[in-house]
């Protein structure tokens, strides 16, 4: 399997008068071609910052002290701005959180799509228009939508416009941050299925970032669990749900209510602050299985089985 994206030890810190907010503190993972790779975690774990970091959208007071982001063999962090622009949108598309609400309310849909396409593609205006209309059809929107304004569309329709725009130039990798939050359940299903279908049709790779474990269960191939700025577990979606290894993952899985499930259990305690991560393993204050070593030494993310990575002392030296 080819690796499309490899992130090595990425850190994103924010400077403040009280110290450094270490929002992303040493994250490494690989994303393979044509898969749906999910990044899951609760609020404050750093997943949105991670995506901003990968796309080099971090602005001061945020900065990237270390790490490598290898996309198609090129380290994105070392690229100058113009070359980055070439890659953005054409090869690497981004659907930010709440994108559907940031459509320009005074410009017609068609124009906005064409603007975006022209900005990054080397085609002329007529071709861009044809492409835009074609993409609208791809996502199941009637052609009348092109001449409408954003406020005339529902949330789900706006999100589909965003998706249509994002994949117009057939990028290799699409990163979607909370693509279905704030959408109704039936529309949510439609959007997630759409993403999966488009991925197959255009041979793209999709990274989905969300706190909704059920959504991940429905479309992901592999999933990474984030906690306190680090990845604590990576594995196939089946493995993670059926046999979670990390205690946080276990807690997360059992906390999701589902039809037919008798019993849900939360995780006691509070999420820690990026200003002051706990010593050793960051989850140890809330962990039922915490041992002595957990508060002292931070466990590394290790491949304990092929394709299964865990950062936990419970799986320390077992092979």
């Amino acid at each position, binding site marked *: 399997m080819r690796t499309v994206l490899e992130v090595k030890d990425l850190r994103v810190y*924010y400077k403040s008068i*009280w110290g450094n*907010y270490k929002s992303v503190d040493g994250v490494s993972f690989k994303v393979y071609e044509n898969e749906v790779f999910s990044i899951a975690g609760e609020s404050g774990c750093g997943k949105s910052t991670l995506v901003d970091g990968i796309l080099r959208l971090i602005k001061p*007071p945020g900065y990237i002290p270390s790490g490598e982001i290898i996309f198609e063999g090129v380290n994105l962090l070392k690229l100058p701005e113009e070359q980055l622009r070439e890659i953005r949108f054409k090869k690497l598309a981004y659907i930010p959180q709440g994108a559907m609400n940031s459509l320009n309310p005074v410009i017609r849909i068609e124009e906005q799509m064409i603007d975006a396409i022209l900005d990054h593609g080397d085609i002329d205006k007529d071709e861009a228009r044809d492409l835009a209309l074609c993409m609208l059809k791809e996502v199941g929107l009637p052609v009348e939508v092109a001449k409408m304004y954003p406020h005339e569309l529902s949330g789900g329709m706006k999100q589909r416009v965003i998706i249509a725009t994002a994949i117009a130039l057939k990028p290799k990798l699409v990163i979607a941050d909370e693509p279905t939050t704030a959408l109704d359940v039936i529309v949510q299903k439609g959007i997630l299925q759409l993403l999966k279908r488009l991925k197959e049709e255009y041979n793209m790779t999709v990274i989905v970032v969300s706190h909704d474990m059920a959504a991940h269960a429905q479309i992901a191939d592999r999933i990474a669990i984030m906690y306190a700025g680090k990845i604590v577990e990576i594995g196939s979606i089946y493995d993670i749900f059926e046999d979670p290894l990390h205690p946080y993952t276990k807690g997360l899985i059992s906390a999701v209510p589902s039809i037919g499930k008798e019993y849900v259990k939360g995780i006691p305690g509070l999420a820690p602050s990026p200003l002051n991560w706990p010593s050793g393993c960051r989850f140890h204050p809330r962990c039922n299985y915490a041992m002595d070593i957990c508060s002292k030494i931070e466990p590394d993310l290790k491949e304990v089985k092929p394709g299964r990575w865990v950062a936990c002392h419970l799986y320390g030296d077992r092979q």
Partner: protein
Amino acid sequence: MYMRLQHKLTSLKGIFRTIFTIKSLKLRVGMGILLTLIAISFLEPIITHCRLGNINPYEMGLFEKLLPPSLKHPLGTDHYGRDFLSIFLIGLKNSLVVGFLGGSLSILIAIVVSFFAAYKGGLADIILNSFTNTFLVIPSWVILASVAVYTPKLNIITVSLLIAVFNWAGAARNLRSQVLSLKERAYVDLAKVSGASDIEIIFKELMPNVLPYIIVGAANAVIGSIFFETSIGIIGLGATQYVSLGIIIYWFLTMGLIVQGYYNIILPPVIALVLIFVALNLINVGLDEIFNPRLKKITGL
């Protein structure tokens, strides 16, 4: 941080403590200048008494006319034979008093109108809002000046009232939109289902959160008042029963004192006015800095 500020403002002690530990340099400087001006203007009776004995500074012909500055008359005398330092300080005091009185009255009217309109909603809101908008649109300065011509007694109270009547609309509009948005908050609903009455909700739930806007509105109202009062004074439509900086300027404009080079009379009111406006605007911007943290220069979050 802004929330913490609001908590400090709940007690009088808190207010004083906050003022003196305010982080905004602009606010501190502005308040410093203003307080100094207020202080020296209110100390006028003492200053006059010490230097010149028990005289009525308004009395004309006590001294020789248009004397140059000297030890006895640091700012010389004016064309009516009065000690100009005393007259100037009285004028300064009156300008400030009218400014603050007019400003306070106008913000009070604004608070009553906007809270009532926004909280009651419905017909009351439509009527009061149209009323407010009308006042915003009419050229208040022109009308104020015209009214001033026909008002028989233009003393400090009447001028302040007149100014307040024309100055409240801007703040009212601002406050109304704040109250409109705040009354939809869930904590207002929670207060309702806890049995709180409308009055309690307005004063205990809404008012504290509107306070920053009220304070800024008040600062603006004071600036507007002083501007109004001074400008009608300068063009000669001003008060007849008291001296103010605007009126002093009117005198030396009409008496040709500039051409004759009586800088001891020309400079003090002009400098004082500039200082007042600079101070008030610094306060305004400083308040904005405190209440709107995005304007603050931050190195971190």
